[in-house]
């Protein structure tokens, strides 16, 4: 387990570093003058030159990369062009909203997806199983932003059940939860489908294994076999899948924040693109990417730990 953990962490660090390097390098390939493109036509030549120096765009790629990393390690990811505050701070302020959205999206996916998958596996071949299969595929297929807008239209504008704007009154948990329901559902619904399918496939595979046959031969109740014996084993790959799901949900969160006018990192970055707030965009991309890699890492480690065979090699 220890060896696995160290290897996995090392790989994650390497991948993140490589991703960031790729991003910085890409800036070099913008046709024309990066400063002009990034700051827009209204910037004066002095502003552009200052920007170039600030970003280190006048120096070689290697130096830029080194500069960036040495700064990043100390938490300096650049300065917000509009507010002149550190990018890290700007992003950190918005992060809790997005994290809440993603966490509840995962919550929906797990709460709905796992039981559905279990149910389908136990009723394999039945009408219920087929219906769940079609529903799962449909949930995976339809994009989250369409779900977001349609649910906004139906539940908010039409029926008025849920509020349309914002994240709710600070300090009022109930209000905040109300504001969270629809956006998190939009973010998580697609993954209900992924999880249901994965759990179903995993359960079906586990249920054919010899130890399940032995458990049956010992007269254990079907309920015990399904939940204590089979699900415990089948759930392990699902944890890994959820880690990957975080990445999709980050994307989904951007749309959900725009559609439901919620504050968050996604909204922040979208506004930053429109206002040509380049450091915020790049800094935000880096932070979210690193966060995603971290999540997949954590998911892999949890999955490894859940399997006693891997865990005991500590």
């Amino acid at each position, binding site marked *: 387990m220890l060896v696995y953990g160290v290897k996995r962490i090392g*790989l994650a660090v390497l*991948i*993140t570093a*490589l*991703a960031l390097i*790729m*991003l910085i390098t*890409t*800036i070099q390939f913008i*046709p024309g003058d990066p400063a002009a*493109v*990034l700051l827009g036509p209204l910037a004066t030549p002095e502003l552009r030159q200052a920007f170039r120096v600030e970003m280190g765009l006048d120096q070689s790629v290697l130096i830029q990369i080194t500069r960036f990393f040495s700064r990043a390690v100390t938490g300096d990811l650049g300065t917000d062009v509009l507010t002149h505050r550190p990018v890290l701070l700007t992003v950190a302020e918005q992060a809790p909203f997005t994290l809440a959205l993603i966490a509840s999206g995962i919550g929906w996916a797990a709460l709905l997806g796992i039981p559905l998958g279990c149910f389908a596996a136990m009723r394999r071949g039945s009408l219920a199983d*087929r219906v769940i*299969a*079609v529903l*799962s*595929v*449909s949930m*995976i*297929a*339809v*994009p*989250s*932003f*369409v779900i977001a*807008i*349609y649910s906004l*239209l139906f539940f908010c*504008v039409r029926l008025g059940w849920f509020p349309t704007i914002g994240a709710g009154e600070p300090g009022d948990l109930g209000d905040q939860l109300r504001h969270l329901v629809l956006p998190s559902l939009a973010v998580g619904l*697609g993954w209900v489908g*992924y999880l249901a*399918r*994965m759990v179903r*496939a995993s359960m079906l595979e586990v249920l054919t294994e010899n130890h399940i046959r032995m458990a049956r031969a010992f007269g254990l109740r079907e309920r015990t076999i399904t939940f204590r014996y089979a699900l415990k084993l089948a759930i392990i*790959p699902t944890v*890994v*899948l959820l880690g*990957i799901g975080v*990445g*999709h949900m*980050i*994307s*989904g969160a*951007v*749309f959900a924040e725009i559609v439901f006018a919620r504050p968050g990192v*996604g909204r922040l*970055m*979208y506004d930053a*693109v429109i206002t*040509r707030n*380049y450091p915020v*965009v*790049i800094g*935000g*991309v880096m932070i*979210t*990417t690193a966060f*995603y*890699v971290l999540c*997949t890492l954590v998911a892999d480690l949890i999955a490894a730990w859940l399997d006693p065979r891997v865990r005991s090699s500590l």
Partner: protein
Amino acid sequence: MSAPLSDAVAATPTRANTGRRGGLLRLLSDPMGALGIALVVLVVLGAIFAGVLTSHNPIGMALGERFLPPGALHLLGTDQLGRDLFTRVLYGARIALTVALIATSISFIGGLILGMIAGYGPRWLDSFLLLVFDALRSFPTVMLALALVTLVGPSLSAVVLVVVLATLPGYARVVRAQTMSLKGAEFVLAARALGAPTRRILPVHIMPNLIGPLLILASMDIPVVITIEAGMSFLGLGVRPPTPSWGSILNDGFSFIRESAWPAIAGGLPIVVATLGFTFLGETLRDQFDPRLRKDA
């Protein structure tokens, strides 16, 4: 916005494939397959015959006719500038399918080449390519789109670029896995023993075995491509107005959602139809022709 299906697809064990009927009939015998084909045909025909099916101008404004509900003259109503939504949706289909075709082809070919190199070439090259692919996949797709559009500006090419970057690693990984297993196959070893050089083995012996699974993968990726294009256009990162893309129609509808619900519904409808149709089709194709393509994340 979902990332490439090849990333995290969990397969359903297949329904028993009864009957030895030929390809198309097998697809049609499965209700999901039949529905998928129907929807896909609908979208494709709509795109091709857009000019014939409607007489309206997709970008022609008629400010006296804003927000009309669906009716005989305007099948899906009109938007905030009086434009016929049905027409715009049909022309939007052209954009969606064009992007799908171009981007998928590039990813397909690129993934094929890089995957074969990774699978067949030296270890260090394989490790390096794997790292690059993993690094690419670690960007949440929307973040990738935001970053790239910041650098190159919004356009259809930007959309294609984002799609390719997001989907190519998926193809490459499948090709790599297949290539590695084929590398040790008897007929390859035989060819090498007879002195065939790598540049002959790859296209002649290995590639033909890759095309089949790749095509199925491509069909499953199309809904993802459509989603990325629509999503980017929704955010204003794709085609520029007044060109109709499903995403921009949806965005307009969203902006004016209090005025009228119809433009939003009209914008979302083709996206739902297309993604469901292509997904059903792709799923059925995979179930019928290559259940081995299950990939559990």
